[in-house]
């Protein structure tokens, strides 16, 4: 992160993502929360772009902001009493505890793991054109088994969803 442009972008996008995430649990209306979640997803996609992870950024937009947000909206819509005031839920203390636990875990991982860092000039030296080839090679090369397992899992989820909503044949 050498240039000022990327620094400004980092702070702006981080502010957007964190602000949207905070707004998710501060807002009273569940659908508003979903909108802020979409905003957080887009902020994260921007952060991926600052790291030169082009494929990940676009996939983030396509999968999360494009499809999973629709899923969330459907889920909220089909939930009874989704528009009620969610501020006085009985699960609030439990939620706070779980959130703190997650924050501790992620903080530990972020600070203690030795993340390899490549700066822009390193990437230029390697004639780095994009992440697509690398990811593709990894998915179908070294990580082929998890990839196939993930697709089988998705197929199982698809079949299960259809089985759940199927009407009985009269």
């Amino acid at each position, binding site marked *: 992160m050498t240039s000022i*442009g990327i620094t400004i972008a980092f702070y702006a996008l981080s502010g957007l993502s964190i602000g949207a995430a905070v707004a998710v649990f501060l807002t009273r209306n569940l659908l508003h929360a979903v909108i802020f979640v979409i905003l957080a997803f887009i902020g994260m996609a921007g952060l991926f772009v600052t790291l030169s992870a082009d494929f990940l950024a*676009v996939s983030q937009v396509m999968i999360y902001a494009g499809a999973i947000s*629709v899923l969330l909206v459907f889920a909220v819509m089909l939930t009874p009493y989704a528009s009620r005031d969610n501020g006085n839920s009985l699960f609030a203390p439990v939620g706070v505890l779980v959130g703190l636990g997650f924050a501790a875990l992620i903080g530990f991982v972020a600070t203690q793991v030795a993340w390899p860092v490549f700066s822009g000039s390193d990437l230029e030296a390697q004639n780095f054109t994009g992440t697509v080839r690398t990811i593709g090679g990894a998915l179908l090369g070294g990580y082929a088994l998890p990839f196939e397992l993930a697709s089988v899992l998705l197929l199982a989820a698809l079949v299960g969803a259809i089985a759940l909503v199927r009407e009985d044949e009269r």
Partner: protein
Amino acid sequence: MSAALDPIRTRRPQGDLALVVSLFAVILLIGGAAGVGYLVLSGSLDGRWYDFRDLGVGMAHLAEWLDEQNASQPAATRALLGDHWMSYLTTAVIGGIGILSFVGGVLLILIWVERRLIARIQVRRGPNRLGPYGLLQPLADAIKLIQKEVLIPEGADRFLFFLPPILVFIPGLLVWGPVPWAPNMAYLDLNVGVLYLIAISSLATVAIFIAGWSSNNHYALLGAMRTVAMMISYEIPLGMALISVVLLAGSMQLSEIVRWQAQHYAWMAFLIPFSLFTFFFSSTAELNRTPNDIAEAESEIVAGFHTEYSGMKFGLFYAVELGNAVAVAAFVTAFFLGGWSLFGLEAFIPGYIIFATKVAAGYFVLVWLRGTLPRFRLDQLMAFAWKYLIPITIAHTTLVAAEVTAMGALALPGIVELGTVALVNIAFTVWVMRRWARFLGYRPETERVMQPKLTTQVGGLHAAERMRGAS
């Protein structure tokens, strides 16, 4: 025939003046073409900043000049802002203004074009009252919509009600980024351009759903759910059709895809026609245009997800729908019709003019489909996507992947390779489409058109049974 039966005649402009003007225009055109041809052939245009065939060359010269200016800035500024900030800023702003003005202009003109075209297909004239040939109609529409009262339905969530027009407009603007107008004229030439396009067009889905949900209206919700179901179903064939393009061209960058087509003198439309059909048809579903416009099937659910939207909010939905139609035409041009290349003529004709002509042709086909075909029912649409298009697209992609691998392994001359690929693909398309349709139960011979039987004997139930037994 008496005058009472003739349609109302309108007066044509004076014939003589029109003849003189058109003669003058033809002479000017021929002279201009000759001049341009001379300039191009003598090579005095290549690489100069005044090469009007490709505005990107001029921009590159501007960027270089700005970098030189940048090098003479004080060191402190250069350490803070970097070595290229002037050129980045200037090219970004100019490109942004270019795209904004283009999209804005297109959105205004499109309303006129669409209405006149559809009217001509329907044996009528279209708007011709406001301004010459009705050209001020879009302006009048915009002013009318702006000055309308802002109606928010009771029980609608205000925040969620105001959001969808904005959410739908942003992707409509962003998709124009990667479009390559000429060899050096692509504003946002991403390495993952194809994926970017699919991602941005999937953002419209959630906006439409929120529009329907927040309107507090049964029609709107019905329309929104239909739309979402249809859009997410057709995103799959859309993406998979583009995979074949990416496989053949070897890159997801739009300018690379167009360059591949220019180098090989082969348009993707000839090589993978099934992908063209799938992409086009899925795009009409993504755009909510006939024959896939059940989302706003006027005869059934009034206006679908934008029933409750009035004024400029509705104007935005409508304009963005038309703008997206032109964007889809632009993608079809870039992916399948060779973009700015025209088998070598792009040396003489500016690339962006070739591109714009193809986009206009693609848009014309979209309007033609809208004016001609009735619409499908939702379950027929979904069945078509899931049971017919997706399996064939998967098989087709596998076939193209095999062909690309074979082309990489063998090193035959280009025309033999591509010719074989084209023939194999066309044969595959025709054969598989027919067999699969038959497998799914499409029996045209049993569903043939049955003309009514003609009879002169009247009768009741027994006569009916006799007639049915006789057929």
